[in-house]
């Protein structure tokens, strides 16, 4: 078992204003899985993603990655280290820094890492080549199309060779054609051995994954293994 969630609950607010975003959620992910977490807006998908990423403490329950119980064994710096080493984030809004070039954006997760500049650049170029953006390395994000920006964001998520890629609505801001390109890229990355966990509210994305988990009102209501066509 690579990633395991045990009875995760998350409650926001207090008293009458209390909101139960997640209720006793549990599932596990193996290395190399491609999981789609789907459900309607406000169902708790993104909250679940942030808890898995070590960004938000659950109200109760455990997140275990590689036999490490994140919120019990790691402090703030430890969780940051976990995100740096285990997690590659892909955001819906790309979240590239506008004043950095594509290459520099990809280099960003390695900024605190103490390895040589040359090695960092080699790794960044490799990540860019994997998403097909080698020729756009020197461009600013504003000079890239939406699809290219998301590819750059995926390269940024890949550059540290993370254990899991967490993608939050990665095609939400893209047109249909570009969306299919990105999904195809995720498929390729999964085939190359990357573990992918994608949050989406678009049911059509589920077909791209190998497993799907449906969440509604903070509860898992369906787990499904999707047969490969």
């Amino acid at each position, binding site marked *: 078992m690579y990633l395991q969630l045990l009875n995760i609950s998350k409650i926001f607010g207090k008293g009458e204003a209390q909101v139960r975003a997640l209720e006793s959620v549990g599932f596990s992910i193996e290395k190399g899985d491609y999981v789609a977490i789907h459900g309607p807006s406000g169902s708790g998908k993104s909250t679940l993603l942030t808890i898995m990423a070590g960004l938000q403490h659950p109200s109760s329950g455990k997140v275990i990655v590689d036999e490490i119980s994140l919120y019990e064994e790691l402090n703030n710096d430890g969780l940051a*280290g*976990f995100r*740096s080493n285990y997690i590659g984030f892909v*955001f819906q809004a790309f*979240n590239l820094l506008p004043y950095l070039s594509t290459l520099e954006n990809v280099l960003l997760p390695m900024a605190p890492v103490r390895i040589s500049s040359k090695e960092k650049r080699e790794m960044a170029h490799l990540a860019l080549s994997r998403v097909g953006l080698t020729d756009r390395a020197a461009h600013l994000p504003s000079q890239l199309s939406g699809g290219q920006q998301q590819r750059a964001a995926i390269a940024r998520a890949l550059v540290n060779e993370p254990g899991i890629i967490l993608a939050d609505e990665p095609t939400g801001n893209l047109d249909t054609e570009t969306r299919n390109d990105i999904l195809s890229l995720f498929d390729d990355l999964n085939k190359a051995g990357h573990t992918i966990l994608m949050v989406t509210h678009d049911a059509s994305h589920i077909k791209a994954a190998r497993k799907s988990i449906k969440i509604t009102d903070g509860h898992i209501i369906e787990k499904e293994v999707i047969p490969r066509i």
Partner: protein
Amino acid sequence: MNLSNISLKSLFRQKGKKVFLLIAMVISLTTVLTLYSYVESQRLDIENQFDEFGANIVITPKSDSLVLSYGGVNISGIVTSLEEIEYSQIGKIKSIENNENIRAISPKLIGAGEVSFNGIRNTALLVGIELEEEKKIKSWWNLKGTFPEGDNEVLIGAAAAEVMKLSIGDTFTIKGTVLKVTSILASTGSQDDNAIMAPIETVQTILGKPGKISLVEVSALCVDCPIDDLVFQISQVMPNSDVKAIRQVMEQKMQVVDQVKKVSITIGTMLVILCGLLIFSTVTGSISDRKQEIGIFRAIGFTKSNIMQIILTESFLISLASGFLGILCTYLTVNLILPSLVDLSTENFRVNIWFAFTGAVSIIMLGLGASWWPAISASNIDPVKTINSL
């Protein structure tokens, strides 16, 4: 790419705000350094004046009676002091331990005599002086004519010349001795204005007091010299004399400089506080604008200390630049701008390199100090709340 690169790249965003902050810091540092340089120049000027004028010790005959004189006004008809000092005593002053601090010794014999000129008679103050020593002590004297050289040549004060209608080249008699006016002293506002000053030997002869003097003025090089020690040592070798230090004028000047210094420190402190607040508000505003970016940093694995390092490096770079530019602007202000605008009447107005260096280091410390709290608050930004899509 490392954390410093991120700070460097980030510096060139929001250029307007950062340039504004830089200018404010440079102006603050320049003002503080310039004020300090000015106060320091005034202090040095006064020290030089101490050296230059320094008639700062007066030796008079010891007397048990009170001096019946106030503000230069003597009570008419009362003889206040008749004691005199032997001229031969002067040599003892040169034998004291701190004699290297003594710049000039000017003995004086003072008396009154009836002056006869063009048939008009006036009673005048006659002062016998040692010409060369007097010149050293009274370097501010502004004379018309030539300084007396011969035994019968005199210089007279402006008021005395006016009252007795004397001009340069005139001769007059006093107690049967004929004296020639070779120079007239421009008004000094002191008792010198009323005096006829002649070589001391001549006056001793006129007054019938050979080998006698009324008082001795001593000029000591006084910046670092122990004036009280000098007074004590002279008192030891001249036990029958009163030895007093005159410090009032210079002390008043020093008080003025001290007041200017206090005002400068107050202005400097206010500027430092203002500058600190400006840095604080600019950095806080910058962080507020960059919450999402900082959230991304945290989400992709930056620690809190990484975030602080990025923010503080930016502040350090701006502060460093303001330190260099502040020193440069101070040099320009002190050496070019101020001298061309104002007559500062000082030769000591220059930038002290060590103080400039201290100022630059201080502004860097101020920049880092004022950014510390904003940097901590930046490191505590919750990525979940700031990243749009999460």
